[in-house]
């Protein structure tokens, strides 16, 4: 079996896949992985070619938009070791079009769809669980530590929703940030983060939300297990309603 390797970036990966799909008569019989820092490389290295990577992705978007969407979320998952599955997923996607996501009995399809779904699920969750705090200067800040790198689509969601306010998202794990102010959305990194001062009435509003959170539960129906399965504890750190419980 022929083995190929590429560099670990998404461009490197996509250009390798493009080259294999174009040049290999039987792509289902080759494997692809990311180059590791070992002395002996086992396999043929395919160099990164951004143009080729972009071309592949735009052809895929045309042939199978759902599959392109799936790959977008796969990239947000930042999961290692998916190169080979992705190669065979894309091969199947060109063959079957958007029906490909239903081919869950195919191991590569299942791998990709499963990982991608997880990222999509976390994005949906964070749309609800993200909490903003009002700062002294009137801007709003939300901090998070999600498992997946979802800051971009999340910021896009809030840019349509909280349009009239100035806000920041900060991913503490990846030190990445997004900011929205008067119609412009920007992304960047923050190396040194110091929590800014809160506005004067912030604690008052937070106390009201905490009070609401407590009273809205029906005492006869307490169910902490259900609560935790719907809202895993890893998200509680930044939840206003879970502070000081």
């Amino acid at each position, binding site marked *: 079996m022929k083995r190929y390797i590429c560099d670990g970036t998404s461009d490197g990966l996509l250009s390798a896949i493009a080259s294999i799909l174009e040049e290999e008569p039987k792509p289902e019989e080759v494997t692809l992985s990311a180059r590791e820092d070992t002395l002996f490389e086992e396999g043929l290295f395919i160099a990164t070619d951004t143009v080729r990577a972009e071309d592949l992705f735009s052809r895929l978007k045309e042939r199978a938009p759902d599959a392109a969407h799936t790959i977008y979320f796969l990239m947000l998952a930042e999961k290692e070791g998916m190169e080979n599955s992705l190669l065979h997923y894309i091969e199947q996607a060109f063959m*079957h079009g958007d*029906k490909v*996501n*239903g*081919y*869950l*009995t*195919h191991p590569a399809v*299942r791998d990709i769809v499963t990982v991608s779904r997880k990222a999509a699920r976390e994005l*949906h969750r964070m*749309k*609800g*669980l*993200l*909490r*903003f*705090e*009002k700062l002294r200067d009137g801007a*709003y800040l*939300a901090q998070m530590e999600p498992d997946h790198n979802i800051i971009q689509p999340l910021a896009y969601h*809030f840019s*349509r*929703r*909280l*349009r*009239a*306010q100035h806000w920041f998202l900060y991913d503490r794990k990846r030190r990445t940030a997004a900011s929205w102010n008067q119609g412009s959305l920007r992304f960047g990194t923050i190396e040194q983060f110091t929590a800014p001062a809160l506005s004067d009435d912030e604690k008052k*509003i937070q*106390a*009201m*939300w905490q*009070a*609401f*959170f*407590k*009273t*809205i*539960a*029906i005492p*006869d*129906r*307490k*169910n*902490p*297990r*259900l*609560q935790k*399965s*719907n*809202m895993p504890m890893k998200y509680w750190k930044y*939840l*206003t*309603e879970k502070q000081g419980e």
Partner: protein
Amino acid sequence: MDTLAKLQILSGAARYDASCASSGSRREGAPPGGTGNTSQSGICHSWSDDGRCISLLKLLLSNDCRYDCAYCVNRVSNQVPRASFTARDVVDLTLEFYRRNYIEGLFLSSAVMQSPDQTMERMVRVAETLRIEERFGGYIHMKIIPGCSSELVRRAGLYADRISVNIELPSQASLQRLAPQKEKAAILEPMALIGREIQESLVERKKIRSAPRFAPAGQSTQMIIGASPETDFQILRLSQGLYKKMNLKRVYYSAYVPVSDDNRLPVLAAPPLLREHRLYQADWLLRFYGFSAEEILSDDAPHLDESFDPKTAWALRHPEFFPVEINRADYATLLRVPGIGVTSAKRIVAARRFSLITPEGMKKIGVVMKRAKYFITCSGRPFEKTDRQPALIRQQLLLGEGSDLMSPRQLVLPGLYV
């Protein structure tokens, strides 16, 4: 009284209302200079200590009620602290919470203050202020106070995404006995009016895109379970009628939580949660699985089974329908298999386009076989060596993990779906 104290009283008084869905409406992007949009699929923002999704700021405008409905904490004869919000209070709370992403929007109901009209007027003012003055584009769900004028119902529908009239109890007799000041007509008439207005607005908007929207997320209702003697069969038939004839989006069931020792009410040790759970399951069968109330229950067996979910109970009564062949059965037939839900059925149909599904394949595509295995074959081969005697299957289901006896863990509460 400060806002915090009012909030505690008036959210506590609203907590027995089951509906919290924020789905079904699409306001793309916030209005110019304003805040908020809605999401077609709805978003849960938190889960309270009872495990229910919190999506909307759920409040009563007031709990200071003139009426005396036996099953309700806010009835006039009950000694509880009373409070009322001003319209401004509610508007400010909604906006402050929304800006911090605590909520999808507002759910506003109220006790009857001076009169139905006066109460409804003030509720409509809240929605009007939010939409017009504050350019709020988030979700609004408003209750209609039975007995208010149809003009107010119309105005509510222009601002709200969803409006609902609570049917309260499953029969007129019970309504008369337990909520003597409410009339059946005062509940059904606004429901019919809302149904007509929704239809008309849909037709108008097909012609002119800018025609006003009327309650774009539709109408829902709620009834209390276990405070009156109706059977599950009566309840399901009522829901079926509401879905079919009134075009309702959702019927919510709320297990009666004893709040009163009024002798017109049954004495319950605990709220009938399992019954509520079974009714929600049966309701899903009506809405998404192509079942009719008459298939699920009958005059001879008018109550839902406690040990089995309604679909399994139906399957056990209909051995002639099984086994279902996974590689051939159509979608509607797959949906009738216990343990196979909408997602699994869709995945099976999608996967077999590529190749026959093997038993391992079923696991790979993520179908849970715990219950399904007794009712299906895969290319002619059974999964379990059962002789398909209903009695035996029944026993195995009960012994094995196939039964979900008393696990309101799985409670499918309004939230993500529809």
